[in-house]
């Protein structure tokens, strides 16, 4: 058989077994109905276009320099070419992204700076820093020769996307909305990044999650949820690019949410219908008017869309950059108060005090997570009304339970410092409040000592006795 027939056979067979391969045609950042539905479709299209311009598509992402994302950049020269795969030598990995300002590079990822392809930019299909190779998305018309210089940029985003697609997307969704295909089977739900809020952080209550926080979660997992630990499967450099991609998705989501929220005020989905009822004008006239207003809004350089994006991204950038500065990381001003019976007693007294830490209101008198607030109707700050269902809700509108502290499962980490941060700064996006303003650091430590002792508290005096001689009867290992 000729080589061509063989190749065809291989392609057909590969296609038949490639059930898990990415379907490029379906890879797009879709707007979710939950935030987009109340917005007029023309305004939605504006948002879509804006995001496309600044972030691109999953397979053709744009490294928008405005954002504090480490997109990665490297220069090098071609060593050999094997079809579409190019083996290279890197001169240096540089963090200087100035040249990314050229629109070709920020979009395409690869630009030849010498040789037959000089000045031409190409989309990268894959990039592997350790293998020192890359592949272009479309075939190179003129193959690069040995020694051709090039610069690649945004490779972290591309490498990160591949890892994200493989390990994260099925729960967290293509655009990070926490609505991937397996998400509906999970409780708690996977995180929706689009609010830019991550729960378990080391930073203070007003700051975003730092890279280290995200890294800790991805590498250690979250016990008590479906988030598994990804180390040692993912290596250090893979973790780093994956986290950049997640941060980038979160920023994209934030901008999307903010834009839609803002446009909803003037361009609600039912605006044409409502106005038509009120003014008796024809719907098509109003539609035309909406289109015109939108056009003006997009074109207005000082008060229009551009200005709004400027403000939102400005805030976002300083928030994300702030999370990386040392002074936003919560470090207890005093060392842990020795874990004594007295300290635990003091902690417990604070825990049950209804005008102190107020822990009891949600976590209940014995820390089982059954405080009275879990049976009450709660106010919804987003709408001003009350939630339909009783119990606590988080910023994503999901019903959540206060932690049952008797189980000894600590989602945000079990180290004393983790608990200190949780108690002192609260948990972002949840009703768990920061107590730092009213409770002294020493008292927070008392609370930590008490909370850590709850799983070992004895329910009855009889059990207390059994516990004190533990080690003999319930010792493992000598069954036979």
């Amino acid at each position, binding site marked *: 058989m000729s080589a061509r027939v063989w190749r065809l056979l291989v392609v057909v067979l590969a296609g038949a077994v490639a059930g898990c391969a990415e379907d490029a045609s379906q890879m797009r950042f879709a707007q979710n109905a939950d935030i987009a539905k109340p917005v007029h479709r023309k305004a939605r299209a504006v948002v879509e276009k804006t995001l496309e311009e600044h972030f691109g598509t999953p397979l053709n992402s744009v490294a928008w320099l405005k954002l504090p994302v480490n997109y990665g950049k490297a220069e090098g020269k071609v060593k050999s070419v094997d079809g579409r795969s190019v083996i290279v030598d890197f001169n240096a990995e540089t963090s200087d992204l100035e040249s990314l300002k050229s629109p070709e590079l920020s979009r395409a990822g690869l630009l030849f700076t010498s040789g037959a392809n000089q000045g031409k930019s190409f989309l990268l299909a894959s990039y592997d820093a350790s293998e020192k190779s890359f592949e272009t998305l479309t075939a190179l018309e003129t193959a690069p020769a040995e020694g051709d210089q090039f610069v690649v940029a945004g490779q972290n985003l591309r490498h990160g996307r591949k890892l994200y697609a493989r390990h994260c997307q099925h729960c967290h969704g293509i655009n990070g909305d926490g609505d991937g295909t397996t998400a509906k089977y999970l409780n708690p739900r996977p995180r929706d990044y689009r609010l830019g809020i991550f729960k378990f952080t080391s930073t203070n209550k007003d700051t975003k999650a730092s890279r280290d926080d995200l890294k800790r979660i991805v590498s250690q997992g979250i016990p008590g949820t479906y988030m598994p630990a990804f180390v040692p499967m993912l290596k250090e450099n893979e973790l780093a690019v994956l986290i950049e991609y997640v941060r980038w998705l979160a920023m994209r989501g934030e901008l999307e949410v903010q834009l839609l929220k803002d446009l909803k005020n003037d361009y609600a989905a039912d605006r044409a219908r409502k106005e038509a009822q009120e003014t008796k004008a024809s719907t098509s006239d109003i539609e035309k008017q909406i289109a015109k207003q939108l056009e003006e809004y997009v074109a207005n350089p000082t008060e229009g869309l551009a200005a709004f994006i400027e403000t939102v991204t400005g805030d976002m950038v300083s928030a994300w950059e702030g999370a990386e500065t040392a002074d936003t*990381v919560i470090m207890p001003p005093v*060392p842990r108060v020795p874990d004594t019976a007295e300290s635990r007693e003091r902690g417990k007294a604070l825990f049950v005090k209804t005008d102190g830490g107020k822990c009891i209101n949600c976590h209940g008198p014995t820390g089982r997570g059954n405080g009275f607030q879990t049976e009450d109707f709660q106010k919804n700050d987003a709408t001003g009304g009350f939630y339909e269902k009783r119990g606590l809700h988080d910023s994503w509108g999901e019903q959540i339970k206060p932690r049952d502290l008797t189980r000894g499962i600590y989602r945000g980490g079990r180290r004393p410092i983790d608990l200190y941060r949780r108690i002192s700064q609260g948990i972002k996006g949840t009703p768990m409040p920061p107590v730092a303003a009213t409770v002294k650091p020493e008292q927070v430590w008392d609370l930590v000592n008490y909370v850590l002792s709850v799983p070992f508290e004895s329910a009855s005096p009889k059990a207390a006795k059994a516990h004190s001689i533990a080690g003999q009867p319930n010792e*493992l*290992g000598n069954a*036979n």
Partner: protein
Amino acid sequence: MRKFWCAFFVFWPIVAIIYSLISSLIPSLGWWFPGPSVTELGQRIDNLFYLILYIVTAVFIGTQIAMGYVLWRASHSKDERAWFSHGSHSLEVIWSVVPSVILLFLALYQMDVWALFRVQAYFPKEAREAPVAEVTARQFEWRIRYPAPGKKLQLKPQPDDLYDVNDLHVPINRPVMIQLRSEDVQHSFFLPHLRVKQDAVPGQIIPIWFKAERQGLFDLTCAELCGWGHYKMRAQLTAETEVEYEAYLKKLQADQNYDGHATPSAVAKKDE
């Protein structure tokens, strides 16, 4: 067509012989089974496996060649009549007794290895008495609980227990036992380099012992399809010297008690 079947049945034993020869003569090709086991018991398991493989190979080649011969002879001479053996008492005795003897031999021969691997009463005493860790499989990770240095592992978590995930550390050159549990569905604790494989069954605590004989990082994977994230259960076994093992536990302890002021270890530092 008669010739075809004849050739067909002879072809496979020839392939088997050639493959066995090449793979054992040129080990660098990597066609043979994985290299030597990290544990002595694993080596004995391998030996059992190879014994069975040799018997099966001999039987396979023998029967295929016999079949090829019969077909070839029948396709050549039209005059020779077939001999119908149906009902032959002595033949039936032969093909019942010979495999029975082989199977009985295997059943008895492997008993001590099996007992050592599976029956708790035969586990080395020092491993049995002081399990080093409790490994809890869950979708999709391995959560590990060690007793504090100098303490014994208890059935219930203790305040000073140490925790890690996806990285099981064990000392080398001494038998160690772990307690295997599952939090949700069935998983399988698989250490391919150590020839250890044991299902983790929800509701049960299953002891496993092994004695790593050299240092290194070895795969710890799940060998039971446990859900859509099955592949994510790729952890590692760190076999290290007693000194390194102690140091690891100390570091874990320091990490776990980190309050932002205590001498932070490497991991804690990163977190700052």
